[in-house]
């Protein structure tokens, strides 16, 4: 059985698992997307953000 067929049979075939797949994948995507965007922002602004300089002022 091919991969797409396995995915279809286990996740998409029944409405209950389909709805669950939607919810779980939305959660995973949202976390991953936010993390990716924030990492990109913090990489190109490295050294300018508060998190990069705060160690100079905390003991």
């Amino acid at each position: 059985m091919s991969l797409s067929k396995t995915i279809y049979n286990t996740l998409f075939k029944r409405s209950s698992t389909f709805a669950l797949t939607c919810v779980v994948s939305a959660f995973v995507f949202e976390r991953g997307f936010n993390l990716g965007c924030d990492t990109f922002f913090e990489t190109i602004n490295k050294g300018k953000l508060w998190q990069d300089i705060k160690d100079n002022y905390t003991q």
Partner: protein
Amino acid sequence: MAASVGRICGAGLFKSNKTNCLRQIKSFSTTREWTTGKKTLFGSLGVLAGGAGVLIYALDKSVRASDLELHPPENPWSHSGWFKSLDHASIRRGYEVYKQVCAACHSLRFIAYRNLVGVSHTEDEAKAEAEEQMITDGPDESGNMFQRPGKLSDYVPGPYANEEAARAANNGAFPPDLSYIVLARHGGEDYIFSLLTGYYDAPAGVILREGQFFNPYFPGGAISMAQALYNEAIEYSDGTPATASQLAKDVATFLKWTSEPEFDDRQRLLIKVIGISTILLAITYYAKRFKWSSLKTRKIEFRPKNK
């Protein structure tokens, strides 16, 4: 996965269909039936509108040489750019400049000490900054106002009790509140920087009254604020050489932050908006092509009835 990618590409998703578009315009456009006069009229109207747009744009971008004020040049700020954040070390130095130089005359009444936490100061440092100031609070049980050391929730106290007191102490000129000054002035932080570093001796013919100074960046040229920033005017706690331009740059960055405290969040959000929009646009494009494929590929055949 490979199958679906193959299907997308196989469906000609990325194939150019320019000839198809041109054929549709040719067949369905209603301008074909216009008279030559109407075509000429609309053609010249279009050219006129376009020309007016270009003219307005060019006038806005011109050097504005007829004005008597000098417009500030654009400086390469470290926060100018699509995804660039503010330089928080510079914000911190700018706060030192504000506190030691600007605060003598200018208030900052929309910024509370709690706003500094996590931006330029740690919580303990912001508390210490607040405690240096005496805040009028009250009334107490007997109805009297009293002085107490500041707390994190207090707003930065101003140097004068009210506008009249400020005018009386400054030759009738009112030092504006600096909280939103970057948004409130044409040129933004470039204007602040140019103004603070732009003091010159008045040229011949410019008459200044008592207590006025010449600054070409200030509208009218006569400003009641004396030059405030000189080399080594203050000493930075992080050891940065305190040249006049460094002081002006840091305080301009600080005032940019006070005007737009949400600046970094906005830049961060832009990345997310562009990312999500790209994905949604691709999905929308694919869905449109998919739904229309049956309509676009149909053929209508005309069969005359054989009598």
